[in-house]
């Protein structure tokens, strides 16, 4: 399958500060991709470039083979849930579904209605009065019901309590299983990534550190760090792996570790 996200020399500069620099990345389709890194590492910048909310300063980015936000068709192929899951506070839940139906030609109103019903949301409720978890679910419903090929979520669970967090990620996994969409999900918490993702991208200090399937990364991490303690099982946790890349990035300035071959 072709790449859902292909970046080459991608960079974004604000004034004199590079929020993202020299990023070469190819994410295959059919994966749930976790984008991790500390706050301010450039995760949101990379995702904004991918959905076309930002234009690159350097390099190129292609999403599903097209230039982000280049037209209605390209916009329709990518569902996006922004950080803090914004919604129009004075519009009701039903209004948001209308909005989705009006603005998206491939809108699946059955899917949207079913999800809202199953979540127990009152369609007449104003979005401003929803809890954080409910608003996140509404934003996810909007992004799913436009029937995208790729779903991009920017820290969707960062402000949710543990229960809402689990429900949200559970719902996301159901969507992946049901519709087979590819997902790119950013988080600064490895535990979230571990629960749902099978592909990892680590971003530290505006630079890409590593990208690959989690299984391969763990295996190669083992080869790099030492002998197996327990033959037959993966020795290092994902948390250890990410921390190792982060500390190595901090120690080596802007030079990341050698990138293992992570493409299937």
């Amino acid at each position: 399958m072709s790449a859902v996200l292909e970046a080459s020399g991608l960079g974004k500069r604000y004034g004199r500060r590079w929020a993202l620099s020299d990023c070469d990345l190819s994410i295959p389709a059919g994966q749930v991709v976790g984008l991790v890194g500390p706050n301010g590492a450039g995760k949101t910048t990379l995702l904004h470039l991918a959905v076309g909310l930002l234009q690159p300063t350097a390099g190129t980015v292609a999403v599903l083979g097209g230039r982000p936000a280049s037209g209605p068709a390209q916009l329709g192929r990518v569902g996006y849930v922004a950080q803090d899951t914004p919604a129009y506070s004075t519009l009701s839940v039903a209004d948001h579904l209308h909005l989705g139906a009006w603005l998206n030609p491939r809108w699946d109103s059955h899917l949207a209605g079913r999800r809202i019903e199953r979540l127990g949301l009152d369609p007449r409720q104003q979005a401003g009065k929803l809890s954080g978890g409910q608003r996140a679910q509404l934003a996810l419903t909007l992004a799913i019901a436009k029937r995208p090929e790729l779903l991009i979520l920017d820290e969707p669970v960062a402000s949710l309590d543990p229960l809402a967090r689990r429900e949200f990620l559970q719902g996301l996994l159901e969507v992946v299983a049901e519709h087979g969409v590819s997902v790119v999900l950013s988080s600064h918490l490895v535990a979230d990534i571990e629960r749902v993702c099978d592909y990892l991208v680590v971003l530290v200090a505006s630079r890409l550190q590593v990208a690959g399937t989690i299984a391969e990364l763990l295996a190669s991490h083992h080869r790099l760090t030492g002998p197996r303690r327990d033959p037959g099982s993966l020795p290092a946790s994902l948390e250890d792996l990410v921390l190792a890349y982060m500390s190595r990035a901090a120690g080596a300035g802007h030079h990341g570790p050698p990138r293992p071959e992570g493409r299937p």
Partner: protein
Amino acid sequence: MIRLTWRQFRAQAAVGLGALVAVAIISALTGPHLAHLYNTAVASCGAHGDCPAVTTAFLSNDSSLRSGLGILVLVVPGIIGIFWGAPLVAREIEAGTIALAWTQSVTRTRWLAVKLVVIGLASMAVAGLLSLAVSWWGSPLDRVSMSQFGSFDQRDIVPIGYAAFAFALGVTAGVLIRRTLPAMAATLVALVTVRLAVTSWIRPLLIVPLHRDLALSPVSTGYGSSGSGLTFFAMLFGGGPQATLQPSPPSIPDAWIYSTRIVDKAGHALTSRVLNSDCPGLAAGRPGPAGGHARAHVSAGAQQGLQDCVAKVGATYREVVTYQPASRYWAFQWYELAIFLGGALILGGFALWWVRRRPA
């Protein structure tokens, strides 16, 4: 996209409609009475020969309502720019909903274009209907007061242009500044600046004014320092006030009078040296500022001296009135409407271009 625009604009539209209905009710309640008074008293005053008294009495009717409605027509475009235009994009950026709006299957250019057109047309409709109601309501008073250029920007079609321009200005300020309150403030400042600049500098240049050449009238010409704003600066920078003869403006009905000057045949203005040599005793007598009521307090001797002086000066000097006749009122209305609609189109185009190439 049109339906979303309408759904988001609905509450604001209701406020605008409510205001229009209120003005319509006030006009409908008081307007027929004014028209009736005009038809019974003013229209027949010529036959009775008491027009000055009748028109003065007629103009005192609803005078505060008249100025109130006039001010309303003046400020409504500003309100539209500040409360409809400035928050349109800025509020979505502040609330983060821009990321929701711009990632649906609609390009941001189309998203903004539809909003600009729909709400821009609504702005023009509100200002146009308001101006229509007020122009209709005030027409008997306007006919009598004979100063249609005095209420130029409160009547007829120019408020439509002001509203379109103010709305586009507000949207552009919001797109550039990205924060609602600063964008609102910038909209107000920019709108007032542009309106004042067009009113005082561009509007007088739109059509070459006419000149009317009159003999100096000893009766209506006074003596004093001129009362225009320029004199204030002349006093600041050029020493004391330049006292000179002052013709009172002739009564050209409904005209816009730029100036009345005293010049000789070659077009040179009357200098104080000429005035002093023609009328040596004048400055000593000092009959006070121009105008009929001022002269009433002056002694009969000084008044006779002034009239003699004006007659003497009038042998070589004439009064030249620079003005726009009443017949050009609608030409000015259309020109000014075109200027502000053109400005609105340029601003709207700029906002679209900016949104297309700039980040969210």
